[in-house]
């Protein structure tokens, strides 16, 4: 795994590289500033598999650098891990909003580093596998990528879009009190299977991105996170204090999707139909198993759909 580690403190960087080497990660390139990191990304012949960025740096900080890296071609879904001391925890929201996948805390904790980079390595391998599969199927570079029905689809281009893994990591980073201020809302595309079977993986990916765009447009505030779980299921994290907006969210989403009806008709495609679940409150137990909150929100949306069918 080719790692780019960025930190303006040479002592930290040297210790970190030494720790990574002990953990078996020996292909590490270092940069002492955001400028140097961007130059390395620009001039490197092969893309880095993972970037690890310090948050507090002079001039361009780690969060700004994260957003800038995300804008670079080929770096839309490269894992980006933020490195932070505990007092920086208030910056974590901004880091995830800028596209971070996970975070590590300073000082170096070897067990934490091993565990988090282990997950990152799995992501990198999965990314490589998807690329290889796409190349062996002769997919053209300009064509939309093709997805399996249960595959996760990158949401980085969507305002508030985030990977499911990054959403789980964000939930883990919240303390109990902040967690209580967040709700999760599931959105289930009820005819997802039908669209996938009729249109194939590439068009299905585009349709899910259309749905994600509508979800994002329905939530006109910056503090939102939208992740796609696969199988036509989305989950959104919203501030609880926006309860009024959340209540009208389902109705508005249906209206926004309906605006696509003519385009879909012209393309002879089925319009995605959605069911929105009730807001699921984040509880302390979810901080240890954030996937549970995501599953509960999605189940609530699916249950809502079953209820609508039964009562129709």
């Amino acid at each position: 795994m080719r790692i780019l580690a960025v930190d303006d403190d040479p002592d930290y960087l040297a210790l970190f590289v030494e720790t990574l080497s002990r953990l078996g990660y020996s292909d590490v390139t270092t940069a002492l500033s955001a400028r140097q990191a961007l130059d390395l990304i620009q001039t490197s012949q092969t893309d880095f598999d993972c970037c690890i960025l310090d948050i507090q740096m002079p001039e361009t900080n780690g969060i700004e650098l994260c957003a800038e890296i995300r804008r670079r071609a080929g770096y839309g879904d490269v894992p980006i891990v933020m490195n932070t001391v505990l007092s920086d925890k208030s910056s974590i929201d901004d880091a995830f909003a800028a596209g971070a996948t996970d975070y590590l805390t300073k000082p170096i904790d070897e067990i934490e580093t091993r565990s988090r980079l282990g997950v990152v390595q799995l992501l990198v391998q999965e990314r490589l596998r998807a690329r290889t599969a796409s190349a062996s199927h002769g997919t053209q570079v300009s064509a939309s990528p093709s997805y399996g029905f249960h595959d996760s689809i990158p949401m980085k281009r969507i305002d508030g879009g985030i990977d499911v893994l990054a959403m789980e990591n964000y939930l883990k980073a919240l303390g109990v009190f902040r967690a209580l201020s967040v709700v999760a809302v599931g959105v289930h595309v009820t005819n997802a299977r039908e669209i996938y079977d009729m249109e194939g993986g590439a068009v299905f990916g585009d349709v899910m991105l259309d749905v994600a765009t509508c979800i994002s447009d329905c939530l006109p505030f910056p503090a939102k996170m939208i992740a796609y779980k696969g199988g036509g299921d989305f989950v959104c994290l919203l501030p609880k204090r926006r309860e009024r907006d959340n209540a009208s969210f389902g109705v508005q989403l249906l209206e926004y999707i309906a605006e696509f009806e003519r385009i879909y008709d012209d393309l002879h495609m089925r319009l995605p139909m959605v069911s929105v679940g009730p807001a699921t409150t984040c509880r302390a137990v979810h901080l240890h198993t954030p996937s549970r909150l995501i599953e509960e929100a999605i189940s609530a949306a699916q249950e809502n759909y079953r209820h609508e069918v039964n009562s129709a």
Partner: protein
Amino acid sequence: MHDPAADLSRSDPLFQNQVQTQVAQIRHRFLERLTDRCLDMEMLANSIDRTGVDIATVMAIRQHAHKIAGVAATLGFDRLGALAAETDACMARIDGQTDWTAARPLLESLLLEIESVLETHAPV
């Protein structure tokens, strides 16, 4: 690119020896920089004492504390790391003279701890 270190097993005594040498070098450089950081923080704190709170100066102190907090514990200076982390968090909250008056004793403890570390482990 071929990495000779990767050829060595991580439990190999030669690899362990190499690691220890690297850590000793990092520790040496950290202690050298710590002297400069201590002098700079003292100067910055005196400047605030004389002329009042200036956020840029507070942030410069915080930056030093932040860097020490990120590394000290890994190099075996646990108390220094904890004090630096506390100072870092405290400096982040400073918004006026009252906050500074409350934060100043904490910074003083950090500076004393740095002096104690340097007295015991001064680089030669």
